[in-house]
């Protein structure tokens, strides 16, 4: 735990799992480096939990291999692999107190009593649950119980820690608190974390790398910034941020840029992707990449900036940010700007502008939007 050379590099090689006729995980490959914090993000039914359970040994793949530090652990039962899991529900043993719960794995491993006491204390210290040693499991709050469950997992010094949406049952505020602490704990332990969640903010804020899953396969894997700035599909774009998705028609493709038709206006946007002139496609425009200026100040004179006319239809002030709904010719845009400076009022005519490189053209129609994400629905 302390200062040991971090090990725990995980290799998932072409793993598949079928339940009945339904492929839950489909030819899935992923490498997780030792010490990396990786989140598996996706809507329910995307196979993320099944994949995690296969890493933990609770399900066995129908095909492929799972390799941990160059050892094939594909078919090992959970008690024979150096992984530990924090589950979604509280799974503390009701007949044991907090210290006995945390020491369970060490007692099974026949660690000496003094050593158990020392490591249990250390683990409880790490999750800030010192002083709760003698408490019965059922007297703890949800957040406390999950802290103890975390201590019960890390005390065994697993090479990979697995998390199956451990915070999803908790209140928003406690969830945020624990997200920060989890990240701190990861920094302190330096272990490999694989974290399953359907909460994009949770995944983005904690992880080194986020793997967006869809239908049992990887839709996109990358750092949170990469996913946010360069989503490869509408599914990812709508899952990881608050973006405007606008149906468009591709007019022409020039070097490095695409000319599209949006509500009768021709716009040049970029970067180019796999689209042909005449295609129906979608324009993805992040809400905070758009800037607004009152129209009476005249058109934006900036070079290379795309600009449209619009009118502010709704203003939502949420502290640090202001959310505007802007109606342009036939298109409704969600715009987020800093609340510093003067605010626009409802009904104001505005110039709507963005830099062409901030607008992405993706070849799919709007029907491919991730079901769980609501465009523009995020509030902080």
């Amino acid at each position, binding site marked *: 735990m302390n200062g040991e050379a971090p090990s725990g590099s995980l290799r998932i090689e072409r793993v598949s799992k079928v339940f009945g006729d339904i492929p839950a995980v489909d030819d899935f490959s992923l490498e997780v480096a030792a010490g990396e914090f990786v989140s598996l993000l996706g809507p329910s039914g995307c196979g993320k939990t099944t994949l995690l359970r296969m890493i*933990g*040994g*609770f399900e066995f793949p129908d095909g492929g291999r799972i390799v941990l530090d160059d050892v094939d652990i594909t078919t090992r*039962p*959970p*008690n024979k692999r150096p*992984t*530990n*899991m924090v*589950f979604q*529900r509280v*799974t503390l*043993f*009701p*007949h044991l107190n907090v210290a006995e719960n945390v020491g*369970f*794995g060490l007692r*099974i*491993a026949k660690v000496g009593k003094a050593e158990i006491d020392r490591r249990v204390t250390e683990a409880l210290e790490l999750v800030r649950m010192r002083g709760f040693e003698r408490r019965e499991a059922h007297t703890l709050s949800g957040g406390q119980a999950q802290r103890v469950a975390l201590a*019960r*997992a890390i005390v*065994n010094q697993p090479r990979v820690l697995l998390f199956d949406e451990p915070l999803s049952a908790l209140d928003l505020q406690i969830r945020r608190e624990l997200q920060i602490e989890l990240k701190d704990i990861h920094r302190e332990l330096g272990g490999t974390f694989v974290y399953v969640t359907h909460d994009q903010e949770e995944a983005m804020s904690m992880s080194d790398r986020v793997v967006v899953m869809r239908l049992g396969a990887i839709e996109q894997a990358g750092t949170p910034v990469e996913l946010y700035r360069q989503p490869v599909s509408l599914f990812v774009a709508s899952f990881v941020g608050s973006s405007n998705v606008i149906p468009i028609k591709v007019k022409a493709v020039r070097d490095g840029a695409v000319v599209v038709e949006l509500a009768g206006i021709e716009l040049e946007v970029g970067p180019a992707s796999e689209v042909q002139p005449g295609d129906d496609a979608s324009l993805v425009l992040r809400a905070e990449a758009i800037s607004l200026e009152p129209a009476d100040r005249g058109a934006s004179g900036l070079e290379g900036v795309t600009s449209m006319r619009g009118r502010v239809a709704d203003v939502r002030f949420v502290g640090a940010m202001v959310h505007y709904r802007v109606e342009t010719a036939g298109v409704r845009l969600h715009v987020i700007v800093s609340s510093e400076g003067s605010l626009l009022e409802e009904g104001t005519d505005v110039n709507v502008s963005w830099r062409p490189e901030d607008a992405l053209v993706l070849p799919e129609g709007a029907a491919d939007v991730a079901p769980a994400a609501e465009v523009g629905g995020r509030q902080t």
Partner: protein
Amino acid sequence: MRRGRRSWGLLVYSVLVFAFLFAPVLIVVLFSFNRTASLTFPFEGWTLRWYRAVFASPDYRAAIAASLKVALATVAIVAVIGTAAAVAVTRYSFRGREALRSILLIPAALPGLFVGIALLSLFIRVHLDLSLQTAALGHIVYTLPYFFLVASSRLLRFDPLLEESARDLGAGWFTTFRKVTMPIIAPALIAGALVVFSLSWDEVLITFFTIGSQNTLPLVIYSRVKQAVDPSINAISALLLLGSLVFIVGIRRYVVDLQQ
């Protein structure tokens, strides 16, 4: 007014029902302390002589010992088989699981007379001499469904993630059962065992057909009642009642656990 009259009627009705239920019990207990051998009123004063007679009688002592042996053997074997069956049926899916569940429950629904005769003819056919052991076998057949029901209903409420957590923390399946499953479901198993004990303790029909030369307590009482009026029957019945009451009080906290 009308409501008042109706509730009076309800009160009288309730008292009558309870009197019907408990008056015989009270009379038996009362006359177990009666000084004379009369089983009818008037009550003629207090004595413990019938209790002394019970404990002095070699027949009764042998019968109590026989009943205890049969009941304890039944409880021990039913607890092991019943727990294993309940774990199998609730935890694992296998071919014929539903059939097994039904078959396990059937003996409780069969008439005792039928089970007794069936077992008797089986024992004769396989040349098994009737004894306390065969009686215990009969009791096992009869009480297993009750234990199975109690154990499997507790296991159905058991969160399988607790077992997965134990496996995850390094416990094999047997260690998991011993250190996690067993301690958590223990109250239900104890409640089931007490039910089995009390069923076995006063079982008559199946015992009658499957027992050898020795007799259990209910059979001795039955034959005594047929022979002559004997107030020691009252004493031994009162003792049986006391035993049952102790069980009921003892079982309560476990039953409460079952209802949670």
